[in-house]
């Protein structure tokens, strides 16, 4: 039996009943003798009880039963007291919490305290910090909140807080501690400790004992709980969640254990100045970190299947609307990619598929989607056996649309010409022509791929079909970059975006109109100065001049940089707010030597400028 399916059904239905109950309670509160209202409430509680019992959610069933009994009494009495309304509302709230537990696949929380309480019980303590054991049943009143602040002069806050925590635990039972003992031991650096304590000892006495700690700057017994409040705010803003295989989690735990052991090994080796042991430990550390990295990436990986799985339906619909007969073949759907990349692939893939069917295939044919890995890249190819793309027509159209001049058109190789269909403005939806209309929206596809640090390549043999290939990095987090120095700033460019690096002598630079260009393999490539783009002063003339050949908006350009610093694999971090709003950089990395590199995102930097220019 698909228990998961039933669980979901139960949850949505029970939530509806609860909502009805809550609404109805307000109605009955206004008119405590509303017979029909009381009947309705009884039925809702009864339904929840029945469903929960069927699903073996015992606590939920018991609580619903309890509410049902109380409502049954009301039916007999013909009215509901105001006090009972409060209690019933509290019961509905608790049921909502129980549904939350069930949704999270957690054990249901305790309901006995609620059921056994004679009076409407005081408000339950909110469990805000995720601790091992929820302590919801403890009423707030009996616990004491203590906040300790260490003096600034304390150089070893961790051990000091631990001693204090142990000391406090001698007064009674610690319900909650921020930071927790665990966090302190793991080295969370903080100078403040807040503890919720159940104790017989008075605050005065605790204060008196703690006064023997000259290390303490402050001892307070706050009425409210600001630290926990803050933590709750943070946890509520958490974004996307990921399901993780428990096996994988176990491996994380094991790795963490090994890392801790390694840390002690290193610490004692360093303490004894035994360099051979330090070296050995470092080797071990390198292995562990690599393993950890590998496992962490795995958490983020999903098979391509999650995207291609939707494509057969799209093909079916396209066939129906176009009257064509197209067979879709998918190969390599088990290849795994970072979920962030996959999420961005749905649109481009659908788009490429549509282009192939609408413009490539004539009456009937085949579209093949193939994925495979090449070292740290994943290649995804969409190939059709349609009529192919005619480079001559593309040439003509590119000239017509002023993307290139006729001299350039003649000088360009067919392969380079084909790439022009990805240029914005090459083709628009309103002007689809039979063969060159292949470019519809290809600029969008190309931009999407490039945003992921990938490249898009077009290849076609006239009469035999077209192959469009996306070369994507495995992960958005770890990529190979070319390091660039510009006016003392360290910049990086994903290696997938670099066509070539060259060094040229100043006399090789020519002018074409206002534009500086160089000739590369017989092709004239315009030069852009990175310093100028970044609004920096010119800098001293260099010989040779270092160039990064890359593509911006589909055009090959030579980027003039101060110095090329080689390649490196880096762990890219998204830039935190407010840097996420900056144009020109879309990530950064801290290198092994502590320097920070910013990822260069030229297109976003030049977008505005270009919009003005065209």
């Amino acid at each position, binding site marked *: 039996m698909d228990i998961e399916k039933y669980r979901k059904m139960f949850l949505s239905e029970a939530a509806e009943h609860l909502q009805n109950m809550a609404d109805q309670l307000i109605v009955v509160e206004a008119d405590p003798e509303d017979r029909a209202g009381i009947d309705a409430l009884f039925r809702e509680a009864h339904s929840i009880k029945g469903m929960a019992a069927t699903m073996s959610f015992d606590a939920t069933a018991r609580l619903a039963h309890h509410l049902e009994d109380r409502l049954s009494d009301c039916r007999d009495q013909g009215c509901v007291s105001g006090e009972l309304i409060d209690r019933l509302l509290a019961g509905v709230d608790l049921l909502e919490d129980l549904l939350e537990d069930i949704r999270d696949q957690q054990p249901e929380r305790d309901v006995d305290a609620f059921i056994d309480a004679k009076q409407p019980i005081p408000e339950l303590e909110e469990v805000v910090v995720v601790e091992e054991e929820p302590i919801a049943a403890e009423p707030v009143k009996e616990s004491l909140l203590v906040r300790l602040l260490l003096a600034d002069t304390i*150089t*070893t806050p*961790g*051990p000091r807080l*631990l*001693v204090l925590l*142990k000391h406090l635990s001698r007064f009674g039972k610690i319900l909650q501690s921020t930071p927790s003992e665990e966090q*302190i*031991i793991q*080295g969370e650096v903080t100078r403040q400790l807040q503890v919720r304590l159940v104790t017989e000892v008075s605050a005065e006495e605790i204060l008196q004992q703690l006064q*023997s*700690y*000259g290390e303490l700057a402050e001892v307070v017994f706050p009425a409210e709980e600001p630290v926990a409040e803050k933590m709750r705010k943070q946890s509520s803003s958490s974004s996307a969640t990921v399901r993780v295989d428990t096996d994988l989690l176990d491996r994380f735990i094991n790795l963490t254990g090994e890392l801790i052991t390694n*840390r*002690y090994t290193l*610490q*004692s080796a360093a*303490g*004894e100045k035994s360099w051979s042991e330090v070296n050995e430990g470092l080797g071990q550390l390198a292995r562990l970190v690599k393993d950890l990295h590998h496992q962490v990436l795995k958490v983020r990986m999903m098979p391509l299947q999650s995207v291609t799985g939707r494509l057969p339906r799209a093909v079916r619909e396209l066939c129906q609307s176009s009257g064509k007969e197209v067979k879709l073949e998918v190969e390599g759907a088990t290849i795994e990619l970072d979920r962030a990349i996959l999420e961005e692939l749905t649109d481009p893939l659908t788009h490429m598929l549509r282009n192939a069917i609408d413009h490539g295939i004539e009456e009937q044919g085949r579209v093949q989607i193939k994925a495979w890995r090449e070292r740290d890249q994943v290649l995804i190819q969409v190939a059709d056996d349609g009529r192919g793309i005619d480079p001559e027509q593309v040439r003509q159209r590119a000239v017509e649309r002023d993307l290139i001049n006729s001299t350039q058109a003649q000088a360009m190789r067919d392969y380079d010409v084909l790439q022009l269909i990805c240029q914005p403005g090459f083709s628009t939806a309103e002007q689809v022509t039979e063969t060159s209309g292949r470019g519809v929206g290809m600029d969008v596809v190309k931009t999407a791929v490039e945003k992921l640090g990938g490249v898009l390549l077009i290849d076609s043999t006239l009469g035999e079909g077209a192959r469009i290939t996306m070369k994507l990095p495995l992960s958005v987090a770890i990529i190979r970059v070319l390091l660039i120095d510009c006016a003392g700033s360290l910049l990086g460019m994903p290696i997938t975006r670099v066509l070539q690096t060259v060094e040229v002598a100043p006399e090789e630079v020519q002018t074409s109109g206002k534009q500086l260009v160089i000739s590369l393999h017989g092709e004239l490539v315009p030069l852009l100065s990175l310093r100028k783009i970044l609004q920096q002063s010119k800098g001293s003339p260099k010989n040779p001049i270092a160039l990064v050949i890359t593509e911006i908006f589909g055009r090959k350009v030579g980027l003039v940089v101060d110095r090329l610093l080689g390649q490196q694999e880096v762990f890219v971090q998204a830039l935190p707010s407010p840097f996420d709003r900056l144009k020109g950089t879309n990530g950064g990395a801290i290198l092994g030597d502590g320097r920070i590199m910013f990822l260069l995102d030229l297109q976003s930097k030049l977008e505005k400028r270009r919009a003005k220019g065209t």
Partner: protein
Amino acid sequence: MKQVLIVDDALFMRNLLRDIFEANGWEVVAEAENGLQALERFVTYRPDLVTMDIVMPEMGGIDALKRILEDYPQSKIVMCSALGQESMVMEAINAGAIDFIVKPFQEKQVLEVVGRACGG
């Protein structure tokens, strides 16, 4: 007069602590240079307090602490730590050390901690 056992592999540190204790009305009943000696001397003298260095040859301070507490769970042992040994200190506290002092020792800090440890 309260009795103390000083455990440290460095003579300099032992002397320093001895001076502080003796100047303030404590009796230093014995000294030990490593964990093994500490165990022996603890059993012999049963002092009110032990100051225990962490990193020592033969047997380290944390092992010695655990061994002593196994047989004498009420023992009051104060760890002596250097900066950078936080995680070891915390391990010791978890294992039952009552408090710790940080090198370089300051007389005031040492007296406060040991005074508190012996409940006075």
